[in-house]
């Protein structure tokens, strides 16, 4: 059997490097962790197929981010058609946790409020916020993933945080139980 252009080891290395960033980007668009996971897996599956179909991928990071963004954008449109703006995780019952039920409920309400405020922000701002807070990336790292200048990251991050803080303060969500 001839050798594949991208070996399993190379693919695993690419996955290890970028899967969290790809998930974060998908999450920023969908605001749904499991949907973001599906998009992440689909993105890497497409990468594997594309790379081994004879097409050269010069910049895997840029390719992955672009495909993930396109998939997430398409998915968010179809998800909106299916469910409106309600995240799918809110359709089910509240899962059990170690927190007391009232604290768990308050926490869920706070999360729901944050999600609805995030939903009002532009998706590119959410991409930066997700990378900043979910992945603990600093501005130069985010700039490298998204392919935009560091100064733009600083500006957009500052603006997005300000808007989030204002909106959450207005509805009284400033801390978690």
């Amino acid at each position, binding site marked *: 059997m001839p050798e594949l252009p991208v070996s*399993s080891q190379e693919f695993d290395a690419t996955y290890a490097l970028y*899967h969290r960033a790809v*998930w974060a980007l998908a999450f920023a668009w969908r605001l749904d962790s499991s949907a973001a996971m599906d998009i992440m*897996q689909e993105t*890497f599956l497409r990468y594997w197929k594309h790379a081994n179909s004879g097409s050269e991928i010069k910049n895997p990071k840029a390719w992955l981010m672009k495909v993930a963004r396109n998939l997430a954008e398409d998915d968010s449109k179809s998800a909106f058609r299916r469910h409106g703006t309600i995240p799918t995780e809110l359709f089910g019952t509240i899962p059990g946790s170690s927190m007391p039920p009232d604290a768990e409920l308050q926490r869920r309400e706070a999360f729901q409020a944050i999600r609805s405020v995030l939903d009002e922000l532009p998706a590119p701002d959410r991409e930066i916020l997700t990378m900043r*807070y979910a992945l603990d990336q600093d501005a130069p790292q985010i700039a490298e993933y998204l392919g935009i200048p560091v100064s733009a990251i600083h500006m957009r991050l500052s603006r997005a945080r300000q808007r989030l803080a204002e909106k959450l*303060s*207005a509805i*009284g*969500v400033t801390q978690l139980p």
Partner: protein
Amino acid sequence: MNRTSHSPEDLDPLFRVYFQAQLPKAWPAAPRISETVTHQRASIRTTRGSWILAGSVAALLGFGAVLSYAPQNPTGTNDSDLLRNATANGEKLDKHIFPDHQPKLPEFEP
């Protein structure tokens, strides 16, 4: 809950808790189609694509050949000559269209 305005720095811990709570608890292994299947599919796709391309090119060349060897004037009338030999007063054209027609000469009255 406090309803006074808070700075983003105050809310940073809240943002961090929210986003980190969304992270998957466990990351799955890298997805992958088996290498054999990938090779077979790639091979089938390449072979089928080649045949389709070859067929299309052959059909295009054949069609071009038919067009270039087809008679220029399949109806048999030589209209191009008619137009080439036409005169400004339309005399030859009239003869071609109405071969039995005798032009009426103007009558002179003395």
